[in-house]
């Protein structure tokens, strides 16, 4: 039927279809544009003003200058980096181990998966309250259990000293300030976050693992490859798109984390001694407590570019090593 084939589609714009198409996406598009996209530009505008509760005078880039000169701002960036560096590798490694174990031919994998995923579903606020109680310096179960193992009681969420400082201090070595590492308070929050996010990694990796075709394994096995070779040369390379996705998503997540810190350091947010004051909490503090809306916007904008830069860097560096089969 040649008369049918010659009608080439999409060579012209069908205005009627276009109109209907936009009508259908309008509700979703309007909400996303108004509340999630256009505010970026408005944020930049706000950041150029001395904006307190109401709009103040235009001050150009002065808010950015203040941020860059402010040690508290850099402190919050440092906390954010410690936080991300503490969470991402540990979560990836642990969830890979668990996912790989669950991927084996064993009974009850669905039950295990369900249990491991549970912390991710529960509200962070309630779960963080429970962990605050576990970490309690006086009555906490953690100090009790560690005490049984001979570890002296720790301050956990109240401890501003760095973990390296504490560890070396126990051995009688004094470390310089810059080598102190993240505070024990921040490490406590990191432990909580790993606990919460582990199940997400497990589920995503299990999905990735079960997507690897069995022929690849069978072929390798015929060639006499052992389990370890299979893991190193097949499983990990073929899982790399999933790992890559998880790295990107968890970096963005870690840089935005707010709820665990807000709950676990309440009402002394970001404490003790600002050692858990991450970038989001710093923005929140300036916005909500000090009502410096212009300054908070400037910091948020800087953070936005840091996250964007990091994501692009990850795509450039890690993306090259990803195999797509």
């Amino acid at each position, binding site marked *: 039927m040649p008369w049918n084939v010659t009608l080439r589609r999409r060579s012209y714009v069908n205005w009627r*279809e276009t109109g209907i198409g936009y009508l259908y996406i309008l509700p979703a598009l309007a*909400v996303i544009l108004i509340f999630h996209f256009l505010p970026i530009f*408005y944020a930049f505008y706000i950041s150029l003003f001395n904006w307190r509760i109401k709009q103040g005078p235009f001050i150009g880039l002065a808010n950015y200058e203040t941020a860059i000169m402010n040690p508290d701002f850099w402190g919050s960036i440092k906390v954010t980096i410690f936080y991300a560096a503490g969470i991402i590798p540990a979560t990836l490694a642990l969830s890979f181990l668990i996912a790989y174990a669950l991927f084996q031919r064993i009974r009850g994998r669905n039950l295990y998966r369900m249990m491991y995923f549970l912390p991710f579903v529960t509200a962070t606020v309630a779960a963080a309250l429970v962990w605050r109680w576990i970490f309690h310096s006086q*009555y906490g179960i953690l100090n009790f259990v560690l005490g049984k193992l001979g570890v002296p009681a720790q301050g956990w969420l109240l401890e501003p000293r760095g973990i390296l400082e504490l560890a070396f201090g126990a051995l009688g070595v004094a470390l310089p300030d810059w080598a102190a590492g993240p505070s024990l308070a921040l490490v406590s929050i990191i432990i909580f976050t790993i606990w919460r996010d582990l199940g997400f990694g497990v*589920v995503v990796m299990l*999905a990735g693992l079960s997507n690897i075709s069995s022929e690849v*394994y069978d072929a390798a096995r015929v060639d006499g490859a052992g389990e370890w070779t299979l893991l190193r040369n097949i499983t990990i390379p073929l899982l790399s798109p999933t790992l890559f996705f998880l790295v990107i998503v968890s970096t963005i997540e870690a840089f935005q984390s707010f709820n665990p810190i807000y709950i676990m350091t309440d009402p002394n947010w970001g404490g003790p001694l600002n050692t858990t004051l991450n970038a*989001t909490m710093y923005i929140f503090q300036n916005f909500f407590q000090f009502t410096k809306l212009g300054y908070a916007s400037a910091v*948020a904008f800087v953070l936005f570019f840091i996250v964007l830069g990091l994501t692009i860097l990850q795509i450039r560096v890690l993306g090259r090593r990803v195999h797509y089969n």
Partner: protein
Amino acid sequence: MRRESVATRPVAFPAERRRRRLALPSIPARLLLHLSLLGGAILLLFPFYWMVTTSLKTPEEASLFPPTMWPASWRIENYVTAWNLAPFGRYFINTVFVACMQTLGVLTTSALAAYAFTRINFAGKNLVFVGLLGTMMIPFEVTLVPNFIILKHLHWYNSFLALIVPWTASVFAIFLLRQFFRSIPRDLYDAAEMDGCGRLAFLWRIALPLSKPALITIGLFSFLGAWNALLWPLIVTGDEEMRMLQVGLSAFQSEAQTQYHLWMAAATFTMAPVIAIYFVAQRYFIEGVSASGIKG
């Protein structure tokens, strides 16, 4: 791609494939696997156990050191005390209302949008779709201050509109639903059109019923997101009677002071509905997350 689905059966999740498994491990290896997996699970679930047992203790027993692993007596009245210490009833009503409205909104807007992205050829379609996916990369905190000011200008501050409207659309939901709509055979659409079935009728009577798993997943995630939200409701509302559950629970820390057994009771009853939903519908949660990972 996968077109084997029969028209009358719901379309399966893309992630839901025949699973391929490694060779059956030897008995000692299996034992070791179970032992470590079980150990991990116990460690991971211990906080839940600790929460419930602490919530049943007397104040004196809760602050015993060394702590007791099992409550000496079950004080159910801790729950009543905690419930009455703050307007939790109000918080629950607010949260259920907001969560339902958000869910309804997300389902409506994403059904319409996903339909347009699969079935309507409009100019700029791909560009708009990629742009929408790009907005998922925007960190939440950048839009916080401007949204606060926008909502003040709209006189929406401290209202349900502020809590609901900005969260009635979701790029992830559109994306997931589009995946489902794409796997509906074209013939079905053509046949329906031939019978004089309009676009909305097709969407309502054929596409949506076939996409039930995706709709349930989207609904659950949307509901859960509203239930667990903290930062947004904290910023766009001020009055106690407008508080959402998580905001109320975090304020409860200062209201109950150091009565940790009451903290744990409140944590338990705010968590309970979510855990109940999870146990009933866990496969939708897990499949939704799996799909996000594979496609992302």
